[in-house]
């Protein structure tokens, strides 16, 4: 916009580069800590650049990868199933709400959006899911509570359907004898890939990062998702030790770097995928802000 001088632009870039480095610094510290030798960590702490490069943390994790592989599989399963199921439910609810001639459209919309204003809170929710529906220590506990859908996504999608799909298309398809489900499947969904991608992306990240459901509904370590496993290791130093003891009795375990290596394994997928999806993510945030 402003054709600033070279010095001015240089200053701005300098400022932003420093800020970017500060933002990334904790990640660098985590990575280099995981690649450090444990004795070196004890001597001089987690360093920006490992003084003695060592992959022993990763080797140990690899040698007893059962827990990690199981947690990873659970996270992947929950993320895929949750995103697909959630996306379907959201689309199926948003589309009728976007049709002006739908009966009970007003009351239904109120029913959906009221959940954004008021909620029962943790205790009744917990009791509903544990006493009415026995989801404790089951895969459902990771999939259903809180994450499957919410009114915000419904608003996002309904707005898209209402503004981007001309009603004339729907009408003419109906005239040609297509049933409502057919119209939804063959016309609406193919025309709505941008909004489906955006909401799907939000859902994927929410499921991948979720640890809250596991924290309150899962007590059996066999059902831990990746985040719950990481959570347990961070809050309880003994946990890693006891789970490793069986295979490495007596040998020296690089506990300090191993802890960080676990976290690295947890974020690597997001860091790798981020450059590819960040454009859609940014777009999603801006759309969401317009009507949210």
């Amino acid at each position, binding site marked *: 916009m402003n054709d600033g001088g070279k010095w001015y632009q240089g200053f701005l870039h300098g400022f932003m580069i420093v800020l970017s480095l500060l933002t990334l610094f904790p990640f660098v510290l985590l990575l280099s800590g995981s690649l450090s030798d444990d004795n070196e960590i004890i001597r001089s702490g987690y360093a920006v650049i490992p003084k003695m490069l060592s992959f022993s943390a990763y080797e140990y994790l690899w040698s007893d990868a059962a827990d990690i592989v199981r947690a990873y599989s659970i996270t992947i399963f929950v993320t895929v199933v949750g995103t697909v199921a959630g996306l*379907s439910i959201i689309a199926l609810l948003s589309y009728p709400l976007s049709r002006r001639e739908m009966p009970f459209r007003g009351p239904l919309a109120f029913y959906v959006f009221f*959940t954004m204003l008021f909620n029962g809170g943790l205790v*009744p929710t917990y009791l509903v899911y544990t006493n009415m529906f026995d989801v404790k220590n089951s895969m459902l506990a990771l999939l259903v509570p809180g994450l499957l859908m919410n009114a915000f996504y419904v608003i996002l999608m309904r707005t898209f359907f209402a503004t981007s799909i001309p009603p004339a298309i729907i009408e003419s398809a109906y005239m040609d004898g297509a049933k409502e489900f057919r119209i939804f499947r063959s016309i609406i969904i193919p025309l709505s890939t941008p909004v489906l991608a955006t909401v799907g992306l939000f859902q994927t990240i929410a499921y991948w990062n979720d640890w809250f459901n596991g924290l309150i509904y899962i007590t059996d370590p066999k059902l831990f998702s990746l985040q719950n496993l990481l959570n347990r290791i961070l809050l309880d130093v003994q946990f890693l030790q006891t789970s490793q003891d069986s295979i490495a009795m007596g040998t020296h375990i690089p506990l300090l770097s191993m802890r960080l290596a676990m976290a690295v394994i947890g974020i690597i997928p997001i860091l790798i995928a981020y450059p590819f999806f960040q454009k859609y993510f940014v777009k999603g*945030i801006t759309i969401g802000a317009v009507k949210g």
Partner: protein
Amino acid sequence: MMNASMHTSGQAAAKGRAEEAPQPAVRSRFRAKMKVVKRYRALLLMTLPGVIYLLINNYFPMLGMAIAFKDINFAKGIMASDWIGFKNFEYLFKTRDAFIITRNTLLYNVVFIILGTVLAIGLAIVLNEIKNRYVSRTYQSIILLPHLISMVIVGYLVFAFLDNSNGFMNKTLLPWLGFPEISWYSEAKYWPYILTIVHVWKSIGYSCIIYLAAIIGIDQEYYEAAKIDGASRLRQIFSITVPLITPVITILTLLSIGRIFYSDFGLFYQVPLNTGILMPVTQTIDTYVYRALINLGDIGMSSAAGMYQSLVGFTLVILSNTVVKKFNKDNALF
């Protein structure tokens, strides 16, 4: 059709039928509605999964809030437990906890709102000033990155800094600056700053994007005109950019004021590693409800605190929305 036939028949006859007329009219309106419902039954069917989910996930818990007025006894079952009126609330507000959690939740939110807004706008302005759009977008992606990381991972990152024996602060930065080591996880006084820094680091990218979108939307002609009038760059920022994005600032701020009674559970639970000694400054309403429920199993106290949060929170949402509506009807939530 019905109306037409009634008009053609004689006045007296119409009058005579007046008493019994409402019923067929109601029935026909009902029948017409049924016809519409039948025509759109597929659409209604589509909403069913979502409607059922919200019923279970949101509406059952709303009804379940009634347990705050009960003395829950699992032997008797939730339904059969005794009603005790406001006893749970009395207990809650007699403790010092009620004051501490309210104070912490409110103070952190006030600081987060003010600091977060000012920094995000500043950053958005800087990003907008950068001419090279590609590079500017790269910076934007980098500062958004923390938003994508779970609070558990954030807990690890903070731990790598603050770990008492091996952390970066105690082993590298503080010795280098000539300060003695600090045992971070046992000194409460530092945590308001630590949590604020972590919150800003994690959330600034997100709000910055929203403000940047608003700034990019400003008509360039304002700046052209200002330039011709000889306005400096700083003057342009404060006389054009900031006033023109004020509606966005107002709305985002009012929305966060509506959520001022809620806190980010992960930030206050995971980042301090659930450390008891830090609780005077890290306990918020959300962590209190969680700990009372899961660790202590105290349903009475936790449900009372939860209801307190829900009701005050709801009131604030309604209030802030009313204010948003006054400013700009389009941006109101409802």
